[in-house]
């Protein structure tokens, strides 16, 4: 008996809508992180962190965001299991069709993002929640963390994985929502490329900037 009945397209639409919300958040997060590069002793960044930590609307949105993450993951796992069941016996020969590499790696990049996100939470978010010991001055915390070579490299790898995930996910989102057509399809693909590069370069510039002391 099926407890929740969601048709295949409905599941994909939900994944796309949740992904869209996460894309908006990612841009917001990247823009906020750019404050770390200001040489103001963390005045702007810490003020921003204080606002994020005390505002009730932000706290409410935080719950929505975590729910979005969770629901995005649950639906994707559900879809992946159904997809595996749709072909019980695979092919002997590896697929040689001309497809986007990113699309084939989407599930794997998603899992990698989840692992990296946990490490990221250990550095920052769980510190804020008091679950892990750490410096609550996040400007200083970011400087301490990003000046350690292996942590800086780990974050850069994380951003490459995020780039792969949203590089495909952004255009796929519009396809799933039925907005990819003959007229705007190409433009949406270009927008996806711009978005993925801009967001990932913003994140990267913070880590590289702190590491080299710019």
């Amino acid at each position, binding site marked *: 008996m099926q407890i929740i009945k969601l048709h*295949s397209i409905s599941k994909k639409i939900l994944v796309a809508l949740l992904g869209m919300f996460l894309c908006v958040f990612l841009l917001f997060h990247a823009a906020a992180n750019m404050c770390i590069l200001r040489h103001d002793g963390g005045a702007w960044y810490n003020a921003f962190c204080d606002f994020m930590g005390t505002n009730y609307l932000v706290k409410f949105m935080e719950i929505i965001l975590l729910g979005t993450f969770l629901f995005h993951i649950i639906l994707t796992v559900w879809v992946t299991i159904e*997809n595996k069941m749709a072909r019980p016996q695979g092919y002997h020969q590896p697929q040689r069709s001309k497809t986007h590499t990113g699309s084939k790696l989407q599930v794997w990049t998603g899992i990698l993002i989840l692992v990296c996100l946990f490490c990221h939470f250990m550095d920052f978010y769980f510190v804020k929640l008091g679950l892990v010991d750490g410096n609550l001055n996040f400007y200083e915390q970011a400087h301490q963390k990003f000046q350690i070579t292996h942590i800086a490299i780990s974050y850069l790898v994380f951003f490459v994985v995020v780039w792969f995930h949203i590089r495909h996910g952004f255009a*796929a989102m519009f396809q799933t929502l039925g907005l990819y057509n003959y007229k705007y399809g190409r433009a949406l693909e270009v927008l996806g490329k711009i978005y993925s590069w801009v967001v990932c370069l913003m994140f990267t510039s913070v880590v590289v900037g702190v590491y080299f002391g710019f």
Partner: protein
Amino acid sequence: MRFTLHIWRQENAHAKGQFETYPIDNISPDCSFLEMLDILNESLINDRIAHPVCFDNDCREGICGMCGLYINGRPHGNDDGITTCQLHMRKFNDGDEIWIEPWRAKAFPVIRDLVVDRSALDKIIQAGGYINTTTGGVPDANAIPIPKHVADMAMDAAACIGCGACVAACKNASAMLFVGAKVSHLALLPQGEVEAMDRVRSMVEKMDELGFGNCTNTYACEAECPKLIKRQNISRLNRHWIGSLLGRDKK
């Protein structure tokens, strides 16, 4: 030309299949892939080596959608915009090893060797891929004006021959390109537009019921479609699905 063929052999739907290897020689480069299999079958019968290899085929000119083999990792073989019957041996190199498999999907069970049951696609059509109207005489062609680009899009979608290569190519065995094409070619035209919302619901529900996978936008279906059906048809299917969820006003 000389080839080593590795062909999936399976006695029936319930038997356990396996690959058998058959060397074949003296094949003309201008020979079609199915003609090459005919030559192999003749030798298998004449030399009493094994039962002939079963494979689907009919028109052998790329319009019926009956043939469909997974050849060296690609549905319909190593060329674009063709069916298996349009594939020629000149596309291979002399001495190549060729792996031939049936379409693989839960919804396409193997009947024997390389023949699969693709009636799942027919069931999707039966669920809603038609116009439910009683027709009178044929109206004048100019009585129902249709913009040229709309007629072109409908015609492009209608080119789908239902071979199932989209399902075979998709890593999720999804039939979204097939359903998208069938929904599009009817919904784009005035006669089919009337029932578009009901049609998309019926066909997608049937598609899910038959065990096809979900689309994850890899577009292998578009890359392997012998009729070059575009992914925009999947997007239109999604759009109509959303429309059917939000805009269907029924008692």
